[in-house]
């Protein structure tokens, strides 16, 4: 059981995503992905064939990632619950690309469109990464404002 969002939750997902070669099968992925949930920010690093780590970072550091994913806590919860319910194959309104399309501001954010394109170049890898969360038990706790 791991709490979303936390370093422990991402580490649990990384373990599942790296095992049985599901990310490796999709090919190389070199990107630093940020995740922002309310006041909390995380940096998840993908290198060569694996996801190699996660750390919590101050929100200001998100600008140093290739792109970061930001949406309201309830939307994160809705997406992850749908992924869990559907055994790792989310309904179309809960895929990363759809959420990104429907958000006028964009779900994936970056000041540099060419760096942001990493989100699209490795889209299937990131989708599989979040899909892997269906294999862990998640409890949700909205981070409190600091």
């Amino acid at each position, binding site marked *: 059981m791991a709490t979303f969002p936390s370093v422990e939750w991402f580490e649990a997902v990384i373990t599942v995503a790296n095992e049985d070669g599901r990310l490796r099968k*999709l*090919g*190389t992925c070199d990107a630093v992905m940020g995740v922002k949930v309310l006041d909390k920010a995380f940096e998840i690093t993908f*290198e*060569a*064939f694996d996801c190699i780590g996660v750390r919590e970072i101050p929100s200001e550091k998100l600008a140093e990632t290739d792109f970061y994913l930001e949406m309201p806590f309830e939307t994160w919860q809705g997406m992850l619950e749908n992924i869990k319910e559907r055994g790792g*194959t989310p309904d*179309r*309104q809960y*895929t990363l*690309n*759809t959420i*990104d*399309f*429907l958000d*006028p501001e964009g779900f994936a954010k970056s*000041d*540099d*469109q*060419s760096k942001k*394109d990493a989100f*699209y*170049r*490795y*889209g*299937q890898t990131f*989708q599989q990464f979040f899909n892997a969360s269906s294999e862990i038990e998640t409890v949700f706790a909205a981070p409190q404002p600091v």
Partner: protein
Amino acid sequence: MTIDQKTIEKLRKEPDLPDLDLSWLNPKDTPGITVKVGKRGLTLDEINIGVYGEVPDLAQHGTTRVRGSTPRSGVVRTAYFVPEKSDIWADNATLIYEEAVQRQWSSATDIPWETVQPLPDDVEEAICQICTFLTEVEFIAGDAPGQWLKQISPDHYEVALYLVSQVMDEARHLDVFRKRALVNGCGLLEAQGATRGLRNILDAKDFTEMSALMHVLAEGFVQTMFRTGEFIAQNEAEKTIFRLCAQDESRHVGFGVMHLRYVLEHAPERREEIHHYLDRAEQLFGHPTDGGGTSALQEALMITMGGGKAHIDKGAELAMALTKKQANEYMHRLEVAGLGERRYRMNPAFGLLLDPPKN
């Protein structure tokens, strides 16, 4: 490793051997090379070191001599290559090529075809119309880079490898959309024909013109549409198709943006010339009878995005949001490439859809 002169002389004089030339064994001026296999395996970036990594600004021979090898006299010419590096180069060519090789997929086995189930007639037909259009478009997307392959010098081989990878990607797109049109009983619908904007790409007389028109403009628009395609998908198979195709398109767009940036940095006098190509392309691309706006495609998109003919209003709203996103992402990519002033002369069909500049 090189062989010293003493050994070569000894070999030449070996009594039991026929007369040997062995001049090819002469030590070269170039030093040996030590390569290290990295985390991604042995990639081109790992062997593009020392003299092997020195890419000439001018390709000065028309033979098959590969970069880093020793020249030989009397060799026949095989082609007229584009000589200027800045006319064809992109700094991410090796990265994109290696990534393309690593991230290949098979339309036969990587798509969960079993998830395609009977759909309402209007939705199925709309999807098949989109697939008919895309199958045609992918033909051109493969033909256009293919036309340039024979003009890339071995001195600039990285670009040739990238172009080959793109042709392979487009072949797979062509086949996967054809398969989707046929898999559920409906089949291919109305052919749209190569529209003016697409014909314009095939007619490009210059590599940068072709790349700006195809990689940055057309494929940028297609990439945004594929991401939306996942939203219109009715099953896991279609979601996977659009997601995988969007990944591939992102590489093509990525090459084009970096090529344009390279040209603008190394041949700034070409700026106005490039605007001229885009003026014409945007006008044709935005034309009502063209690929960006064919009525069959637009109607089919509205039906699939809305979830059926009955919800075409909702579909029209989403299709408009798609066009707006396409225009804005196109503009952002031009900014990354260094052509930010394009905002002020873009075809109003797209320019009016742009969000205000961020700063």
